[in-house]
């Protein structure tokens, strides 16, 4: 194979697999990702489902995509634009045209180039390449269907089953392109289809056929992406929703409490409930409630009963939970509320991503009703922040809102597996049986403001809590004006006090300079890459990504003050910027905002930030 002679070394590569919903693109992408990760690359992926369950075949609405970004360096995002686009039909070409990197490679199944398919995909001509202005791209018109059929003509499988393995042909091409082995993929076939050896063989054969085909196509480049220098250890691939669920389970284990999840399904948060429901083996109880209000209220009831209680939702569901969240605030019960943000307002763009629930998380409750707010910034660190949300809730007796979003919830990335012994033990302040002097709203002398949790069933601690304002210390109902001020201030002080658990804000890049890029939550990866690239270009720019929103890290003002300019970049119309204006009025905040249901692209960010440099 002389073709392999001129292998090009690459730092990082983005591949986008796309095809009809039934074409198996999610599996294809996952197999490629696993091979890359096993090889030692760092990876990040993002699936892109159609909004409909089964949109009509062959249409742009029905295209399903899976993007993987892998490299020999740290990978922070699934990538803006694809170096390689695999498009299994004309609709996939049409849908993804805008996401191909200039001059990139396009591999498409030319056997699907029929008039009917062009029509369904919305082409006006029968020459999609010209129509999409792809002449300067490296377009490989591969006869994928034909060659798949050819490879399996003796397999004894029917035509439908044969065509179902088309995706393996495409995967084979990609394995060749990036010089990958496919041992692991073969293993997968055995595990998955072990009981149907005919299928195992067919998949292997087609994969090999794709690989061989690519060897013979000289137009196809050959790339190599060396393993990355990644922290040593054992890894697994995890999505943000899975990591969130597991992080909550981990907090329950470290607190030695049963996990109770009261939730109502809603895109894109439903999977958290599903991942927890699977874990009955760890004693987790899921209560699929009749609505979001019952979701949070059953959780509050479980918290009252002494479980580690959580409720999971997305924006419209959070709107429904705010009244009850206020009850958790005034009763000072531990509770984690997860909001996987999606495109709004109202039902909005349910399958798309956005960061526009920040002010809702902070301010949606009636009255003065403060609670801690935390945001995760990558699929894997959802584990960490879910754990921390639980820790804060349980150790400070407060509801906590954890914000993630559709982008990190559905995306996957490798997570290093730490033994649970490396996580801190969580120790709620339980009131003790027989404490005849138990004061439900007494505050300890250590300044933590955390009241004691008396669990029903414990002898001698009988007491009453509720949503009416309560007398300081005793917790009985009180209409005394001054007491209301005292309790209002105590509730605020308790949340402020959570700052003891908040690590100092880190700055990526130099500690001072011309421009500080400020972000929060899931835009971490894109902002990181943009800043990295600008720094490589010689700019004095640094990056601060906030995970702790309320309270903010102690050193925030210090961090902000060390830069000539600040730009706050968010996927909303400027909510965190406004929050910073409230908290640190002394600084000027520039904004870069986008509300399109999509993540940032590194390219647009760089362009935007250069204006301030």
């Amino acid at each position, binding site marked *: 194979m002389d073709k392999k002679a001129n292998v090009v070394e690459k730092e990082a590569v983005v591949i986008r697999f796309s095809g009809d919903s039934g074409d198996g693109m999610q599996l294809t992408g996952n197999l490629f990702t696993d091979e890359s990760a096993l090889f030692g690359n760092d990876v990040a992926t993002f699936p892109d489902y159609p909004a409909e369950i089964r949109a009509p075949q062959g249409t742009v609405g029905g295209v399903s995509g899976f993007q993987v970004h892998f490299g020999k360096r740290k990978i922070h995002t699934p990538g803006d634009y694809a170096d390689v686009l695999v498009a299994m039909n004309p609709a996939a070409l049409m849908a993804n045209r805008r996401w191909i990197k200039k001059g990139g490679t396009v591999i498409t199944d030319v056997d699907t180039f029929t008039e009917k398919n062009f029509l369904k995909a919305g082409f006006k001509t029968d020459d999609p390449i010209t129509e999409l202005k792809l002449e300067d791209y490296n377009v490989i018109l591969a006869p994928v269907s034909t060659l798949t059929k050819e490879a399996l003509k003796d397999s004894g499988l029917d035509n439908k089953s044969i065509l179902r393995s088309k995706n393996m042909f495409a995967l084979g091409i990609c394995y060749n392109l990036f010089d990958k082995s496919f041992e692991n993929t073969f293993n997968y076939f055995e595990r998955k289809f072990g009981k149907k050896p005919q299928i195992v063989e067919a998949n292997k054969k087609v994969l090999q056929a794709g690989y061989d085909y690519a060897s013979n196509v000289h137009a196809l480049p050959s790339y190599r992406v060396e393993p990355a220098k990644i922290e*040593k250890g054992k890894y*697994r691939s995890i999505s943000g929703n899975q990591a969130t669920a597991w992080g909550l389970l981990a907090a329950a284990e470290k607190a030695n409490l049963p996990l109770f999840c009261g939730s109502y399904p809603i895109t894109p948060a439903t999977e958290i409930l599903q991942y927890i429901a699977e874990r009955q083996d760890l004693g987790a*109880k899921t*209560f699929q409630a009749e609505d979001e209000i019952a979701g949070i209220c059953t959780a509050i009831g479980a918290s009252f009963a002494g479980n580690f209680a959580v409720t999971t939702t997305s924006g419209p569901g959070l709107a429904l939970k705010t009244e009850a969240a206020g009850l958790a605030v005034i009763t000072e019960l531990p509770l984690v509320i997860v909001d996987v943000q999606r495109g709004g307002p109202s039902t909005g763009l349910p399958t798309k991503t956005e960061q526009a629930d920040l002010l809702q998380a902070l301010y949606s409750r009636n009255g003065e009703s403060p609670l801690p707010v935390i945001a995760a910034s990558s699929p894997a660190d959802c584990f960490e922040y879910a754990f921390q949300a639980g820790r804060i809730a349980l150790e400070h007796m407060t509801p906590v809102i954890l914000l993630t979003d559709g982008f990190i919830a559905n995306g996957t990335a490798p997570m290093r597996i730490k033994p649970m012994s490396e996580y801190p033990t969580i120790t709620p302040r339980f009131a003790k049986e027989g404490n005849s002097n138990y004061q439900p709203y007494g505050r300890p002398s250590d300044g933590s403001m955390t009241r004691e949790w008396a669990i029903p069933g414990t002898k001698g601690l009988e*007491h009453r809590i509720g*949503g009416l304002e309560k007398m300081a210390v005793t917790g009985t109902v009180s209409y005394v004006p001054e007491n209301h001020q005292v309790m209002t201030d105590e509730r605020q002080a308790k949340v402020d006090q959570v700052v003891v658990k908040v690590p100092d804000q880190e700055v990526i890049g130099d500690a001072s300079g011309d421009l500080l890029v400020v972000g929060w939550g899931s835009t971490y990866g894109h902002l990181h890459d943009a800043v990295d690239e600008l720094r490589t270009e010689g700019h004095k720019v640094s990056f601060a990504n906030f995970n702790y929103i309320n309270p903010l890290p102690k050193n925030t003002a210090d961090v902000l003050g060390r830069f000539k300019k600040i730009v706050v970049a968010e996927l909303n119309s400027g909510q965190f910027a406004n929050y910073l204006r409230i908290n640190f009025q002394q600084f000027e905040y520039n904004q870069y905002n986008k509300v399109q249901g999509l993540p940032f692209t590194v390219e647009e960010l760089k362009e935007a930030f250069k204006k301030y440099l």
Partner: protein
Amino acid sequence: MSEANINVQQYTAADFKSDQEVRWCPGCGDHAVLNAVQRAMAELGKPKENYAVISGIGCSSRFPYYMNTYGFHSIHGRAGAIASGTKTANPNLSVWQITGDGDALAIGGNHFIHEVRRNVNLNVLLFNNEIYGLTKGQYSPTTKFGKKTKTSPYGTIEQPFKVGQLTLGAGGTFFARALDNNIKHATQTFIEAEKHNGTSVVEILVNCVIYADQTHALITDKEHKEDRQLYLEHGKKMIFGKDNNKGIALDHGRLKIVTIGEDGITEADVLTHDAKNPDPTIHMMLSNMQAPEMPVAFGVIRSVDTFTYEKALEARIEETKAASKIHSMDELLNSGETWKVE
């Protein structure tokens, strides 16, 4: 706290009184119900610390403050969901939901029908005074058609819910009815409710002296009460009346009043109450009887044993645990596909 722990204790009603001053209007029916609940709990003899009394918002929902047990005065309409969470989280607790016709059937209607459907083992005491008391007199979903209230100055145009019918419509396994001015009977009814496995709905007819005074007068007035109240007991004949000679019989699929000793009617013609019949048909008819045409049924109308939600969940969890290889987070994190970077 294990089941074994729950020994019968010696209590009096006074043990269940908290130190808070009771703040209902003088003459409000809620006072009597409080009294009856405290007696019932004392009689049940469960450890006081195992009771959790959970309410929503309304005059009646102030109830937990007056009980020397664990208590939660929550938000309007949500007591059912909160109580379901408490009971599911800790099935060893005896959980009593205190709610009003507004709290349970207006804003809380959804949680009400769902707790009943799931059959969580709760005692739901629904104080039906046919009015919103706490907000000073607006009509509720049980207010009689045509009644003038603050929000219906020209009379309501809405058909009220029948609490029993709604409960059975949601698949209820237990429905009983009690009356504020019959503390002894109410006490016994509450004890039955606690003993039933599943969601025990007890509709308590209470009088709001301020905003809906005498709304139950048709049933409670001295002159007619014996003729308009039928006290049901499982296995007993449905006999009532001043002279204890009236009975309920089934006639062409409908209930009717018969008089023993008239027209050749004997006790044998009178229905025997079968609260445990899984078929809800007769229970529905009994709970729908309205005065003055028919007597209103009190006591346990339906009590059918089946599995409860929280126990089924516990059992399922035990099965899953036994069948699974994963028993800790470490095992979970290391399960499935993983790889090493060295």
